[in-house]
């Protein structure tokens, strides 16, 4: 079972992703939430996170900055990070992949898309 961190400045999206994860057959442990990159770093320090879902456009520290930070950290570089964002251009997706994103889901999304992307990590 993996503990998951959901990072998005929208409380609505965090609730939706929580619901999708809990209603799936994915063996999930605890689900933690963060509203921006800074809160995500604090959660990573405090918890043993096994997988992250992160938005890109967020205040304080955006999702790509967070991704870069996570991938350059000895403690967290192996934590898979799946981006969940309205940013859908090829350039942005490529940027995320080059920074080390393990997957990319465009908003709007349905439950099956999330489950499909996460299945390979379990």
């Amino acid at each position, binding site marked *: 079972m993996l503990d998951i961190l959901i990072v998005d400045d929208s409380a609505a999206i965090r*609730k939706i992703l929580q619901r999708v994860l809990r209603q799936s057959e994915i063996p999930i442990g605890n689900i933690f939430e963060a509203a921006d990159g800074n809160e995500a770093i604090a959660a990573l320090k405090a918890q043993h996170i096994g997988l992250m879902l992160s938005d890109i*456009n967020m*205040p304080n520290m955006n999702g790509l900055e967070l991704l870069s930070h996570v991938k350059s950290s000895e403690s967290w570089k192996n934590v898979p990070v799946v981006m969940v964002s*309205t940013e859908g251009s090829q350039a942005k997706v490529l940027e995320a992949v080059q920074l080390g994103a393990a997957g990319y889901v465009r*908003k709007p*999304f349905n439950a099956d898309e999330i489950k499909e992307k996460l299945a390979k990590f379990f």
Partner: protein
Amino acid sequence: MTHTDPVISHQDIVAAIRASTADVFATMLGLEITAEDMQTEPAVTAAPSSGVVSLIGLAGNWCGTGSLACTLAFACRMATHLVATPYDSVNEDVLDAAGEITNMIIGNVKTVLEEKVGPMGLSSPTVIYGRNFQTRSARIHEWIIVPFTCGEERLFVQMCLAPNPDSRSRNGNKGTLRAGFQVPQVLTG
């Protein structure tokens, strides 16, 4: 030196708004929504209105604002469908949902338009709500308004987009832009 700048037409914006709004409502809210004919609004208007208006800024070689406007009741309905939790009055969750729906609609419009004019940044949404508030549209450029119906309710997705004068001035062109937003005066409640 002359060069041809890429241009976004009204048709480009309207098509992107219609497709994006339908996609968001079908995928995330499970609601059927029907687009009406596009309107343009060049006039500066000021009259009492009520409801929820959510604004989001775009900036790049082109810049401007996108917005979503609806009644308080419809904002509650959208939040209820988005988060699968009943809301019968406006609260933080309803406003957050309105902001996120705006983010998804305008964000996807941005992705389509970026293919023509290059990358644009997207701001965090600002959501305004209340009863009997007055607005002023400090604008130079025309607003494109795409109304939608969803059952008995109406939703207005609007966009004002123009070439960025800062981007053009680097090429020796002059331009001015004043940002403003238009609140549809049909919002009453």
